[in-house]
């Protein structure tokens, strides 16, 4: 685990990835790497928990678009939880929230995705 990813767990068929700190290119690449591994082993449902990433940049967030593209090919899903106000606003402006739901907690996210 890198210092940009705090936790990875699987629950009810959903992979929950909790990020840590500034969500920049390094953090985005770390999430992409976990995503690629999990997708190879057959996972298609992902919940990204950003409780500890109150600050992001568009380079990090752009990497999430790559994940959305890959998930579309396998009819998978990605959702987010615990977004800071400015992070959700950024996702809105970029249009990411057209393709991904935002849930209020990890529990709700797992329930809705699974």
């Amino acid at each position, binding site marked *: 685990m890198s210092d940009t990813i705090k936790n990875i767990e699987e629950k009810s068929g959903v992979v929950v990835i909790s990020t840590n700190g*500034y969500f*920049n290119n*390094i953090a985005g690449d770390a999430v992409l790497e976990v995503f690629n591994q999990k997708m190879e082993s057959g996972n298609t449902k992902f919940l990204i928990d950003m409780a500890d990433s109150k*600050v*992001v*940049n*568009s*380079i990090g*967030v*752009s*990497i999430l*678009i*790559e994940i*959305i*593209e890959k998930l*579309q090919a396998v009819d998978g899903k990605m959702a987010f939880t615990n977004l*800071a*106000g*400015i992070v959700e*606003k*950024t996702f809105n*402006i*970029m*249009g*990411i929230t*057209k*393709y991904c739901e935002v849930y209020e907690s990890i529990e709700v996210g797992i329930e809705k995705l699974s």
Partner: protein
Amino acid sequence: MKNPEVELKLPVIPDIELTATKTAEVISKHMNLSEEKTGEISMAIIESCINAFEHSKTKEIYIHFIVSDDKLTVKVIDRGTGFDKSKVEIPNIENKLKADARKRGWGLQLVAELMDTVEYDSNESGTTVTMTKKKENNE
């Protein structure tokens, strides 16, 4: 203190833009701006810093904060290559989701949406982004 100014000279070190977002937080608190506005200012600063670091081909950038009664003005300045803003495409997610499309290219759009006013002054001796956030009467 009347109209305090902060000036930062920052070299290209990973994450050094966080120095500027911390400055924005302290100043926003001093000005009594909402948490929402503080986040918007910080994000706009991050994007402008990253652009200057990535594209201007210089080794350092300058950030000025100018506090006045009715607004905060932030300038992000580099002495680099400059660019023609009219040639920059407006991004949209549907195009970005096409195979092989470059996923990047959101910075200018984000800054435009997050701040009240944004101006680019760019030529072969560099780029100055001047952006403002208004303070409401009840803030």
